[in-house]
């Protein structure tokens, strides 16, 4: 009994609604037991649009916390309010507006997003500490791209 055959059996089990299937051929034996809530999981899969889109901008701007520091509660993210190009520093060669570990206050400029030749300064809205920078200098960002994670103080 090879893998495709076993897969076919699994499919047959799923399609039929049978709970358990055991097949023995000589010394070979296969036993398949249906999971508790398998059907529900499959059914919820929406068709076409469920597949991931290749976004031009790395992180999709879903209203969700950034992956790494997700575990910690109470963190805030700073998202790009516009589409454009992200700059970490006021000019080439200058040092970055902020670095991880820096304390920030409302009004503090965190970065620039260039849109249509205009340099838009993105300001901080809370007091706290920068604990992550998510975008590389010069990288394009879309509306809602997460730029920074801040631990409010």
């Amino acid at each position: 009994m090879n893998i495709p055959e076993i897969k076919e059996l699994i499919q047959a089990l799923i399609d039929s609604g049978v709970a358990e299937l055991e097949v023995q051929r000589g010394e070979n034996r296969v036993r398949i037991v249906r999971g508790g809530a398998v059907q529900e999981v499959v059914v919820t899969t929406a068709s076409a649009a469920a597949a991931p889109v290749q976004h031009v901008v790395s992180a999709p701007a879903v209203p969700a916390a950034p992956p790494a520091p997700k575990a910690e509660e109470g963190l805030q993210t700073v998202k790009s309010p516009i589409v454009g190009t992200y700059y970490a520093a006021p000019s080439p060669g200058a040092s970055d507006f902020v670095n991880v570990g820096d304390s920030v206050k409302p009004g503090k400029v965190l970065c620039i997003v260039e849109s249509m030749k205009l340099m838009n300064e993105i300001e901080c809205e809370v007091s706290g500490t920068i604990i992550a920078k998510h975008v590389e200098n010069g990288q394009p960002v879309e509306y809602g791209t997460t730029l920074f994670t801040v631990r409010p103080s």
Partner: protein
Amino acid sequence: MFQKILIANRGEIALRVICACKELGIKTVAVYSEADRHSLHVRFADEAVCIGPAKSARSYLDIPSVISAAEITNVDAIHPGYGFLSENANFAEVCETSGLTFIGPKPDVIRAMGFKQHAREAMDKAGIPILPGSAGVLESPEHGLETAAKIGYPIILKATAGGGGRGMRVVNEASELPGLLAQAQAEAGAAFSCPDVYVEKYIRKPRHIEFQILADHYGQVEVLGERECSIQRRHQKLIEESPSPRVTPELRQRITDSLKKAMKEVGYTNAGTVEFLMDEDGSLYFIEVNARVQVEHPVTELVTGIDIVKAQIRIAAGEPLTSILTEPVTMRGHAIECRINAENPETFTPSAGKITGFNLPGGIGVRVDTWAYTDCVVPPYYDSLVAKLICYGTDRKEAITRSLRALDMFIVEGIHTSIPLHQRILSDPEFQAGDIDTGYIARFLAK
């Protein structure tokens, strides 16, 4: 040819442009608002950029966001679709200054066509029949009375910068004129920041007939026949068809010849639509030019076999029409489009929500343009168009029976749609006889 195009639109027309680009081997960039994250145009584009929140003013209508998205993705050109920024001359200009090709007419032509009185004058000069009316803006009630007396009542007052019925008034006799003129001017001023109003002969039971144009950058203009769009409810088209049951080959030829001349003279390029009213005698009168692709362009595609959106892109890339249309334009058969809207078919209230069941009709002569799919959500923020069902038949009768069987097999569960309304209209003997005008729906709904 372009390497990559950004589509500054959403829904079925964004997907329509993606199809054209794929067939031409051009990469695509979709832009989307947060409400459209799971839309098919995002799914099928090569790249996608979120440009703002659900509200159109901050996403699809926001020029800096769209241009920035084009810049960070390095596209060569922007296709505006219909609605949103498609007839915004400023946007077309910003594209040009940003080094992006705007897929549409030149900004000054869009602007000129946007002012109806300018468009009327240009068409008149080129020999296109114009509705009898004032040569320009009405200066005073006296001017209005004088002009109306020349034309003969009833007349209609219209806003120079207007559209969508605002600033319009029908005047049945001289005594009503001064009051209605003041109303029209006030409404026009409020809606369009320009109170200018002109006067036209009012046509009873008019048909809405429009001609599809393609024009290249070298002065060649082709006319792809006409569409009849008389089935409208409050100026919203519900059903369109091509050819019109009332346009004769002779009339079509005459208008085609005049339009080729007129559109060349105004320097028109790319795709466009010239709208006319037809009176009960079958005479056509110019109304306006729509300087973009229309929702109802597929009916023309089905009867001519020409891909209008691909033609738009190729024209914008500098190809001459002679290489795009390799054979003379001919019409074969009949096509009807039903706009399937997410709305209650009786009360016309919008019906946003999740589509829980979705079966598209298929088979011979059936085309569906849709951004929807099983389990998708129709957002409440935009127009209610869910799908366009376009059916082809060898004649009008077959196109109608085919539309009816396709509507029968078009299943949308979870939201209300206009499918039952379309079934009723297409089954109506009056519609089947081709006995239609822009007042049809009001009469039909009152039955």
